[in-house]
Structure formats: C-alpha cells, structure tokens
C-alpha cells in the first residue's frame, strides 16, 4: 500500500518535470531554427548592408536587403502606441486603485479586460473600415492608413496590460506610507502623486515594458492599417511597414531556402532579440530590491 502511494507520487512528479522540460525544449528549438535559417543570409551580404541598408527590395535582381525602414517602422509605431497607452493606462490604474468605489472598481476592471478579448484582426478591420477614413477626413490626408492609425489601435491593445499591472503595483504599496503621508498633512491627491506612484514606480515600469513587448510583436493589425510603405517615417501621418507586417506579407510566397527566405528569418531573429532584451530589462528592474513596498 505504501509502496504504491510512493510510486504514484514519483510518477506525478516526473510527469510535471517532463512538461516543464518540454516548454524549455520548444523555446530552445524555436531559437535554434530562427538562427539556423536566419544566419545563412550573412554569407552573401554584410551585417552593415542588412542593418543599415535603407531599401528593402527582396525580389529584385540583384536584391536589396536593407532592413532599416522596417526596423524604424516597428520602433516608431511602438513608440506612438506607448505614448498614448502609458498615460491612459497609468491614470486608469490610479483611479481604480485609489479613488474608485469597490463596485466601480469591479466594473472598470472587467470592462478593460474585455478589450484584451478582441482579436487583433478585428482591430485591423476597424482601422481599415472606420478609423482610416475618419483620420483621412479629419486631417485632410490622401489616405488614412498610417503610423497614427496603427499606434491608436495598438494603444487600445496595450492599455489593459499596462493598467492591470500598474494597478497591482499601486495596490501593493504599503499602507504605512499612505498613513504617514496623511499624518504629515498631505491631501489625498498629493499622497497619490508624490508618495504612492513613485513607490510603485518599478512595477509601473515593468507594466510599460510588457506593454511595449505586446505591441512590438503585433502583426495582423499593423499589416492591415499601417500602410505598408517601406520608408523611414518622419511623422506619424506617414505610412510605415513594421518588421512583423513584412514577415507576414512576404513569407507565403518566398522560395524556401532562397536569400529572401533567410532574410525574413533574419528579421524574425531581430524581433526575437528585441523582445528578449525588453523582457530581460523588465525583469531586471522588477527584481531590484523593492525598498518602498511591503
């Protein structure tokens, strides 16, 4: 009887162990494939040509594999999205954790979570069919598919991430700080802005970084609304083509094993490294000794 129990526990423990190994296995596998298929590109062209080249004409003869407009496009749209999403997300978090009554808290939290449930292709469709023509008329542009359109929609996707993580960070600030602040005569508003928010800063920072990570990998929406012009954007009213949209657009028709194929994988490697970097930085900030929270 005791032996059977012991064996069953051993089996369960090992099954769980194997499951965790499989996720590491898949991650390692994906990384290896990305680099295995992406690095052969550099046999034919130099790193400088790829990273700093300004024209992306992969099917031309001879082809140009300059990814700078695509890379800058990704960064530009992400920057715009966070510029909109961060203030909104943080203010929502502040309101929910400091000022809202419990019923409103619950209502707001569930409504914002609903935003995460909307598929990205639906956002893309809204951008194509409504936001695009609207921006076109409002700002007198030749076409409404540009970085601004993409940034607005991506901000809508990032706001739930930023607000829920920021709200958690704000919530975990120790009561003692708030009480000490009130004891010194500060108003609620002063307490929130000058004590609570700075104390929750590491957590809010993590929230923003994770929001950036969410946005930079977004493919379907930017494919449909960012315009698709492979130029280095100088303003938000210009169309742009991020890395994700380029990969989605061109992967279907490349010849497997060709330079174009390797170039697209190289783009994926860049995206992967970017995302990895963001996650590492976010973790580092998050793991810093949190002196101000309980």
């Amino acid at each position, binding site marked *: 009887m005791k032996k059977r129990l012991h064996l069953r526990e051993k089996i369960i423990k090992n099954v769980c162990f194997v499951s965790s190994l499989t996720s590491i296995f898949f991650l390692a596998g994906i990384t290896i494939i990305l680099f295995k298929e992406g690095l052969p590109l550099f046999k034919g062209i130099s790193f400088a040509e790829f990273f700093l080249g300004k024209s992306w004409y992969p*099917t031309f003869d001879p082809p140009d594999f300059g990814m700078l407009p695509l890379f800058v496009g990704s960064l530009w749209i992400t920057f715009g999205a966070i510029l909109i999403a961060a203030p909104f997300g943080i203010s929502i978090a502040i309101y929910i954790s400091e000022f809202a009554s419990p019923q409103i808290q619950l209502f707001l939290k569930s409504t914002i979570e609903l935003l995460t449930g909307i598929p990205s292709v639906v956002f893309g469709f809204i951008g194509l069919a409504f936001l695009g023509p609207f921006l076109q008329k409002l700002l007198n542009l*030749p076409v409404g598919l540009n970085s601004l359109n993409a940034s607005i929609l991506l901000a809508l996707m990032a706001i739930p991430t930023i607000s829920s993580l920021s709200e958690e960070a704000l919530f975990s600030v120790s009561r003692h700080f708030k009480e000490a602040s009130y004891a010194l005569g500060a108003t609620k508003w002063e307490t929130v802005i000058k004590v609570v928010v700075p104390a929750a800063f590491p957590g809010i920072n993590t929230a923003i970084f994770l929001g950036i990570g969410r946005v930079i990998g977004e493919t379907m929406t930017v*494919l449909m609304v960012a315009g698709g012009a492979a130029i280095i954007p100088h303003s938000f009213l210009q169309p742009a083509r991020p890395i994700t949209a380029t990969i989605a*657009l*061109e992967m279907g028709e490349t*010849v*497997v094993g060709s330079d174009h194929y390797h170039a697209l994988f190289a783009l994926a490697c860049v995206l992967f490294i970017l995302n990895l970097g963001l996650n590492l930085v976010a973790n580092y900030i998050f793991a810093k000794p949190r002196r101000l929270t309980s």
Partner: protein
Amino acid sequence: MKKLTQIIILTCLALMLIIPVSQAKDQLVVQGSTTVLPIAQAAAEVFMQNNSQADISVRGGGSGNGIAALIDGTCDIADASRSIKVKEVILCQKKGISPVGNIVAMDGIAVVVHTSNPVSALKTDQIKDVYTGKITNWKELGGEDLEIVIVGRDSSSGTFETFEELVMKGAKVSPAALAQASNKTVSTIISTTKGAIGYVGLGYLNDTIKAIEVNGVEANPETVGGGKYPISRPLYMYTDGAPEGMVKEFIEFIWSEEGQEIVTEQGFVALQ
C-alpha cells in the same frame, strides 16, 4: 471510480491513434496561390459531391508556399499564379521531382482607381511612371489636382510578379507604395481613397472600384482570353510529373465544360 476514468482516458488515446490510420477515402491535398484558391475550392466541392470516395483539402498560403509543399511532398497539386522559378526548378531536381505546369484558367490584372476619378484610360508607360514615383499628381495624367496614392502588393505575391513583368519591366516600385496582403485589401483601399491607384485580379472587380483601360483595351474576360488585354497571365496547377489517378481526374474535371464554368463563375477567364 478512478480506475474507470483511467480506462476511459486510455481508450480515447488509443482511438485517437487508430482513427487516422483507418481512412478509407482517397485523399488529395491542393495548396498554393490565393488567386487560384477560389477556383480550386469551388471545383473541389463539386468534385467531392460527384465522387463520394474523394476527400480534397484545399489551402492557400501563396504560390511559393504551394510549390515548396510540392517539393517537400506534402501536397499533390500546387496552385500557382506564376510560372515556376529557376531556383525552384533546381530544388525540384535535387529532390527528384519533375514539375509539370497544367494551365487551368487565364487571369487578367485590372488597374483600378476610385469611382470618382475622371481618368479612364492610361498607357502601360504612364502606369509604370506612376508606380516608380515619377508621376505624383493626377493632374499630370489629365485628372484633378490630387496626390496619387500608390497601392500595390508585397513583392513576393504572384499578382505583383505579373504586374512587375508586364508593366514595371524591371523598374523598382517606389518605396512609398502601400503594400497590401491581398486583392481584397487593395480593392477596399481603392474604394475609399479618392487619389488611389492599384491593381487587382479580374475576379475582384466590383461596383466600388473603377477599372481603367490599359493601352486602349478594357479589362474583361473576352479581351483577356483573346490575348488583347496587355496585363494577363495563365493560372497553373503544378503536379509532380504528368497527372495520374485522382489528381488527373480532378484536373480533367477543371478542364471540362463544367469546370470551366466554375472558372468563369469565380471571375476568371476560361481557356479558349
């Protein structure tokens, strides 16, 4: 109770393994060009209705994708809206595949503008100049004083390839062109943007956009089939070697009168 659950789970797992092996139907996998996809799908539906033994699975993914699958052996027919490239032929030779292109329909590429645009006819040279970025305003083409918005496809689409070969003739498309993922997206943008110009497959023409005459020829099934319309191309179904068995039956069905009617219904041009 616990033992019963265990038995049920094991039986389910066992069934999951056995069932795929016991497929009695003839399977056919068709993969490739999104342009040819509507033809393949419609034809497959009718074919399966007529032959209960047939089980045809049709997928998109792009011409390059389809040919790659044919080389890998993961599909039986590769739909392609362009002819096979030299690089792909070399890959075929390495894997011992002999690609045979079976033309199943003709397709024309219509150049389209917004319905309110007064310009109704252009020459291929003018279209080329617009797409390279040399001409930037409609007034240079006899239209209104409006900035031209160039809409195109990504450079690896079969539709783009034909456009590049027959209109661009080796010149680079301006990087400011808005590259879209499909015929449908291009037509949606044209229908809502006054200054836009773009190109779509014949089957995607509708009331929301206006097709212009190219070199004096209107884009319609007669001119494409007869060879008068300058921007036209054959649509292929590539097979490994000459078609045999059910692959042969399916392609012969598309070549038949009923099959060619399906081709016309989908908006393409039947073979003359």
